């Protein structure tokens, strides 16, 4: 597949996955509303069951989103074929882990892999490496895009696997700063650039 078509396909795929997550949320609202007909249900075991159910509906799409993020950014970090094969392997390991050790461990695994890749991408982008190619032109926009993607992965990682960790809130703020700065850098590269030059 040509790189241009590959990029286009990834954008369509990511859009479709995001849309699917939206549908899971609609289901969550309807399900919650149905369960809320029983007064005080959130104080019963039914609420925990509801949380687990909803997480289990969300996680497969989260894994797909992470895979697509992994495929999307470091397009030339690896050869395209190798990247697709690595992603397929990561997906296969995630599926095996889901059945052997549970969904949270599996999502934790894929999150760790993608966080690592996004971290490398951010470093390479800072170093202006030619290994990374982006849809968005300009160095600042590229850094922004890398920060945004890394921030999203860090936040998901934090929500899924580090909820009980002592550093949870600190990691949350780090992810939030990455996402917000990434958005600003991506959307307003010109203004950010002139601010940084001052």
């Amino acid at each position, binding site marked *: 597949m040509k790189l241009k078509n590959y990029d286009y396909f990834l954008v369509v795929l990511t859009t479709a996955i995001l849309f699917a997550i*939206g549908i899971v949320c609609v289901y969550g609202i309807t399900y919650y509303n149905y369960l809320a007909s029983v007064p005080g249900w*959130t104080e019963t075991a039914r609420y925990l069951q509801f949380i687990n159910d909803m997480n289990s509906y969300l996680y497969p799409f989260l894994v797909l989103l992470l895979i697509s993020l992994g495929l999307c950014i470091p397009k030339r970090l690896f050869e395209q074929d190798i990247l697709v094969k690595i992603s397929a392997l990561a997906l296969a390991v995630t599926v095996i882990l889901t059945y052997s050790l549970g969904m949270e461990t599996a999502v934790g695994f894929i999150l760790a892999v993608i966080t690592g890749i996004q971290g490398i991408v951010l470093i390479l982008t800072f170093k202006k490496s030619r290994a990374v190619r982006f849809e968005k032109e300009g160095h600042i926009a590229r850094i922004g895009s890398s920060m945004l993607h890394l921030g999203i992965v860090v936040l998901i990682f934090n929500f899924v696997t580090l909820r009980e960790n002592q550093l949870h809130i600190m990691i949350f*703020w780090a992810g939030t700063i990455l996402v917000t700065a990434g958005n600003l850098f991506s959307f307003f590269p010109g203004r950010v650039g002139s601010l940084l030059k001052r």
Partner: protein
Amino acid sequence: MGFAQYLAAREFASNTGQPLITYIFIIAMLQLIFAIMFLRGKHDRYYEYLIKCLYICTGLYLVGFIVIIFFHIQIYNTVLIEYPAGLQLPVESNRFAVPLWIESEKLYFWAMVASVFALTIKGRKELLSFLGIILSVFSSVVFFFSNPFKEPLPVVHGEITRWYAAISGDGNVYQIAGTLYGRITYYYNSTYMWTHPPMLFIAYASLIITFAACVFMLFRRIRDYDEIAYRYAKPGYILLTAGMLIGYPWAIEAWKDAAWWWDPKISGSIMMWVLYSAYLHARIYVERGKLWRTTALLGVLCFVTLVFTYLLTYIVPGIHSVVQP
């Protein structure tokens, strides 16, 4: 300073604000008429009237907001909660620093910011006329269903009234003081309450323009509309993302172990956010194939989910909601 002064400030806010919001409603109706007439006949005269109405309406909204600010400052200055010594509660929480976007004031704040943003659009007369219609409807909704001057801050007023009744001997001071301490510390005076909602309302106001431009993009495939939609989606998305994220540590701090995970409002907000992310993603290839139509449709759908998420507070039970099963 005390209850009498607070009541006088409340009466002043109501007496000053009621005529203002009535004028806003009347001007908004004129704005609606001129917008429809311009869209039908394309006479520049109607467009000029429409712009004048928009400016007047925005000006009145801003004056009304100054009245709201004045009222809130007066609440802070006049109402003092002197907790019983036995409770040993910190003095930082003995005054109400009521945010400017709660109860019936939130829709007013959103409408005001949307009016200001509408004035920043340049060039596209049809788009601004369509926005004029949306803003007129919005002003009518504020006037009839969320008028902040009709009965200013009813919940805050109830709490203040109960407190003064309790210290006069009509009620359990300890119980009311305990409740008020929680409300003041984790709600009214919370830094998060001063940052999380306004960021979201400013985002919503910006995204109204994205919605209007996407509607036009659907019917008339002109590149300008996509550019305008994107221009306003950018600040909207940044504030939406940051505003939503800021709600997370607040939820941990204020709700602790309460049932807020997968709460309908939170699910709705995530749905809205992922759809706006999908919109911005799809937009990268807006020129390719039929993706411009998908992008415009997504932009419209995003706004529908935004309104739906806002209304969830009133239609589905949950920790964010005012309705109970």
